[in-house]
């Protein structure tokens, strides 16, 4: 080997991305083997945010677990609570009152909008667009304001309870949510205009990180990540809960508008389009909101036997709760099936051959939250 060749010889270098990297969206550490700018392999390293949720749940009463479920996916806390409460309701065979069910639909769809806004805002920030992030956060702020007035907290609500919801809508809040829906749709179109057709954005996201439909099913993807691969699977449609069968909305799947099915752009686009559907659901739910009780008759100390598994459609995919009850006040076992953990499983296969800068776009498009992955 000549000296010039030796000086310029290439070698594989292992680099660490995270756990404090801003674009890993939480405390995810990626061990990346690189050959120049090409990634040979990437291994996700989890557990930096492990807080023993499942063990904690075994030592708390059923009601006391609800604040802990907030902390799983802290940007979509309402949906996490709803999943747990529906599972407990199924266990003790109680159904929430009609008004509570409608309120639940309203809050979980508003939360879905807030979560998608955060996902899209930070995604555009990751790949260099600053303005959409500010716009998304501005509109998310309204939703947090509504939730603060409704439940008293801005992020970790502890609002949905087994049997109903904790507080009724305060006076004027209904009109405020209606106002928000009217205000939000033009703003959403504006954010869409900024991103969807933008040449730079499309260059970074189209044909990057392609998850084929077969692969998405094989890994067990769910939610937006699965629909972005062109498979129409929405639990709100397939297995309706909380009265979702009464609402008119369509589940959004990938289109051939730009890029290919299953790439980052399509996952982003599904998220964007889904917010329009959520606004529709919120408006319908407000129209059918009827007076009545917000809490069904639930025993003060919940005791149950048996086991139950229930999945709900969360902003990040299908979140499942498996609860085993042994007749005592506390659950015997609570297992969470988290969609983000499954999204991370495909890293090894998909990232080899990818450019190093594309992995940032890929991580952002999968949109996982480490609180829910590590639990």
């Amino acid at each position, binding site marked *: 080997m000549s000296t010039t060749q030796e000086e310029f010889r290439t070698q594989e270098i292992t680099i660490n991305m995270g756990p404090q990297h801003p674009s890993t969206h939480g405390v995810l550490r990626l061990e990346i083997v690189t050959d120049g700018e090409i990634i040979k392999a990437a291994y996700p390293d989890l557990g930096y945010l492990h807080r023993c949720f499942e063990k904690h749940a075994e030592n708390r009463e059923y009601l006391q*677990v609800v604040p802990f479920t907030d902390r799983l996916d802290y940007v979509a806390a309402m949906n996490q609570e709803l999943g747990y409460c529906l599972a407990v309701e199924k266990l003790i065979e109680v159904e929430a009152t009609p008004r509570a069910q409608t309120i639940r639909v309203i809050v979980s769809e508003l939360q879905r909008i807030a979560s998608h806004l955060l996902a899209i805002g930070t995604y555009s920030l990751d790949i260099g667009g600053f303005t959409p992030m500010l716009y998304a956060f501005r509109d998310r702020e309204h939703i947090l304001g509504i939730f603060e007035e409704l439940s*008293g907290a801005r992020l970790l609500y502890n609002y949905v309870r087994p049997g109903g919801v*904790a507080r009724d809508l305060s006076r004027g809040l209904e009109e405020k949510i209606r106002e928000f829906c009217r205000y939000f749709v033009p703003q959403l179109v504006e954010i869409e205009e900024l991103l969807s*057709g933008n*040449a730079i954005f*499309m260059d970074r996201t189209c044909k990057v990180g392609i998850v084929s439909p077969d692969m998405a099913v094989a890994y067990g993807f769910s939610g937006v990540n699965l629909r972005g691969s062109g498979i129409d699977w929405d639990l709100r449609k397939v297995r309706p809960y909380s009265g979702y069968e009464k609402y008119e909305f369509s589940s959004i799947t990938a289109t051939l508008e730009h890029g290919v099915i299953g790439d980052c752009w399509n996952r982003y686009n599904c998220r964007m389009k889904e917010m329009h559907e959520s606004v529709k659901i919120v408006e319908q739910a407000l129209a059918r909101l009827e007076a009545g009780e917000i809490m069904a008759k639930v025993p003060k100390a919940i005791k149950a036997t048996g086991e139950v598994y229930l999945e709900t459609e969360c902003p990040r995919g299908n979140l499942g709760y498996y609860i085993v009850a042994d007749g005592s006040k506390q659950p015997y076992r609570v297992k969470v099936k988290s969609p983000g953990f499954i999204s991370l499983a495909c890293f090894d296969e998909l990232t080899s051959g990818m450019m190093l800068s594309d992995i940032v776009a890929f991580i952002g498009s999968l949109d996982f939250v480490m609180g829910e992955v590590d639990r």
Partner: protein
Amino acid sequence: MNETQGSLKQYFANIREAVTSVSKGMGITFRAFLKSNGMRKQLGSVDYGAGPVTVSYPEVKDDIPLNSRNRLFNHVEGCIACNQCAVICPVECITIDSRKKTADENLDERTPAEFGSKPKKLKLLRYEIDEALCCFCGLCTEVCPTECIVHTPEFEYSKYDRDKLTYDYLNFKDDNPLPKG
């Protein structure tokens, strides 16, 4: 995107595409700049939208809803030492000690007509909340039969020492004044 970079026609088409898509984005920015006050009116009472939205915090304070869940406070004169808040707390941040009242003791400062229900049976000896542990879930305020433990909208009570966040409500003292009510 750059498959047909070779042809001259494509070269100019690329430039045109880049210019149009950038100007589209810039157009939105300028629109927002021009109507910075017009968009505020759309949301009625809520004052956000284009235009300055940052609240210069220590000088100007944002409105916090009265029912927001921040710092806990216990009005001990109403507390009947029933221990329900300590039991429901998922993080066990409330400590209560009590003893049975003796026969000649009257624990109620109010007259029987005022407290309505039964007189107190337990004497509260200690009521402590470790605010550093509190997770602001609000479960204690919901189970409280006399509604003496409440979440206040007060949120500015950070301390330099962690131990100072443990409050004894029987002889409550704090550097920060508490809001009334």
